[in-house]
C-alpha cells in the first residue's frame, strides 16, 4: 500500500500540473465568457468582423470567380453561383461567360444556360442551352445588326429576334463583338462582395465559437473537452488536498494537546 504522505504528494503534483496547464485557458474562458455575458450591451452582436483572413476561415471570403460585364451602361456581375445587376442579386447561375443587351433585355450566359432579364433585373426566362449538336457556351456576343450570337467550340449559333430559337450559322459571320469581363467600379465590386457574404460574421458569433472551441473545428472542441476534464480534476484534487490538510491540522492539534 502507498503511504499517505506519498499519495498526497502525487495528488498535489498532479493538481499543480493541471492547475498551471489550465491557467491560461481559464483566464481565456473568463474573458470571453464575460464579454459574451454582456454582448448585447457591448453591441457585439451588431459589430461585424471585417478581417479577410477570419472571413475566409468561416468560408465567407470573396467569390473566387468574380466577373463583371459592362452592358449598355449597366453592370452584370457573376460570382460563380449568382448573377447581380448593378450590384443587386438577380438569380442563381453558374460561372458567367458573357452578357449583352438585345430587344430591351439583358442576356447573361453561363456555360450551360442563358438568362433573359428585363431592365429592372426581373428574370424573363431561363433557357437551358442545348440545341442539338451544340457544346457548352464558350462566348456570347452580338453582330452589328444586334443579333445575339453564341460561340460553342467552332460553332456559331444565332438567335432569332425574340430569343426563342437558335440557328447554327452555316457561313462566315461578320466579326461578332464578343462580351469580355471588364473592370467594375470599386463601389460596385464591394457591393457585390458584401451581398455574396450576406450579413457576414458578427463579433458575438466569433467570440462564441472561440469560447466553445468550435472556431478550430472538431479538434478545437476535443481540446476544450480535455481542458474541461482538467478543470474537473482540479476541483476534485483541490477538495481532496483541502480535506487532507484539514485532517492533518486537527491531528497535529490533538497531538500537541496530549
Amino acid at each position, binding site marked *: 500500500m502507498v503511504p499517505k504522505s506519498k499519495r498526497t504528494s502525487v495528488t498535489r503534483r498532479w493538481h499543480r500540473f493541471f492547475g498551471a496547464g489550465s491557467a491560461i485557458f481559464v483566464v481565456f474562458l473568463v474573458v470571453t465568457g464575460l464579454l459574451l455575458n454582456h454582448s448585447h450591451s457591448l453591441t457585439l452582436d451588431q459589430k461585424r468582423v471585417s478581417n479577410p483572413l477570419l472571413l475566409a476561415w468561416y468560408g465567407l471570403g470573396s467569390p473566387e470567380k468574380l466577373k463583371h460585364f459592362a452592358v449598355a451602361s449597366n453592370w452584370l456581375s457573376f460570382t460563380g453561383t449568382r448573377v447581380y445587376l448593378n450590384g443587386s442579386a438577380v438569380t442563381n447561375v453558374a460561372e458567367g461567360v458573357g452578357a449583352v443587351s438585345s430587344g430591351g433585355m439583358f442576356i447573361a450566359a453561363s456555360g450551360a444556360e442563358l438568362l433573359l432579364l428585363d431592365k429592372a433585373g426581373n428574370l424573363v426566362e431561363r433557357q437551358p442551352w442545348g440545341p442539338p449538336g451544340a457544346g457548352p457556351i464558350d462566348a456570347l456576343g452580338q453582330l452589328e445588326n444586334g443579333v445575339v450570337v453564341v460561340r460553342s467550340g467552332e460553332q456559331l449559333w444565332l438567335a432569332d429576334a425574340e430569343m*426563342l430559337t437558335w440557328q447554327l450559322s452555316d457561313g462566315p459571320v461578320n466579326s461578332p463583338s464578343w462580351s469580355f469581363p471588364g473592370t467594375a467600379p470599386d463601389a460596385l465590386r464591394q457591393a457585390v462582395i458584401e451581398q455574396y457574404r450576406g450579413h457576414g460574421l458578427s463579433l458575438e458569433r466569433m467570440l462564441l465559437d472561440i469560447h466553445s472551441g468550435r472556431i478550430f473545428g472538431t479538434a478545437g472542441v476535443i481540446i476544450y473537452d480535455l481542458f474541461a476534464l482538467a478543470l474537473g480534476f482540479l476541483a476534485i484534487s483541490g477538495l481532496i488536498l483541502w480535506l487532507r490538510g484539514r485532517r492533518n491540522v486537527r491531528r497535529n492539534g490533538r497531538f500537541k494537546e496530549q
Partner: protein
Amino acid sequence: MSLKLKKILVGLSCLLLPLMAAASSVYETQAEFVERAFSGSPPEPRVVWLSGERKLAVQQMLGHDYAALRLRYWCQAQRSAWILDEIGKELPITVGVIINSDYIESLRVLTYRENRGGEVSTPAFTDQFYGVALDDDGALNAAIDGISGATLSVHALTRLANMALFLHSDTECKIGT
C-alpha cells in the same frame, strides 16, 4: 497514411458516390421532352407572358409569383407541351407537362434537385395525373394521393399540373390555332 485507412476511405467514397449522384437527377432533358411530346417533329416554340390577370391567376395557384416573366410552350393541334419549374422544399423541380384538349396527357419530372422526395419522379406517382382536367372552380378535378416524406414535392407537382392546365386554356392552343 496506412494501407488499411486508405482502403476504408476508398470504401466510404464508393458508398457515398451514389448519394452524391442522387443530389440532382436529370430524368429527361428539355429537348428530349419536346421531341417526345411531338413524336420527333416539334413545332416552333411560342411564348406566353405572365402579366396582368394571367400573372395574378398563376400567383394564386402557386401561392407566389412564378420565377420568370415569360414561358415558352409548344403547341400543335390542341396539344401543348410545357416546361415549368416550382420549388419543392428548397430547390426547383423541373416538370414537363403535355396537355391534350383540356386534360393532362402526360406529366413527367425532368429534373429533380432535392435530396429527399425523389419518389415523385416515379411513374407510380406521376401517372395519377393522366386524364386530370380543371373543374369549374379552376382546381384539379381528381385527388392526387400524396407520398409520405415527399409532401412538399407532391404539392409542387400538383400546383404545376394546375398551372399547365390553366395556361393551356388561356392560350390559343386550346382552340387549335
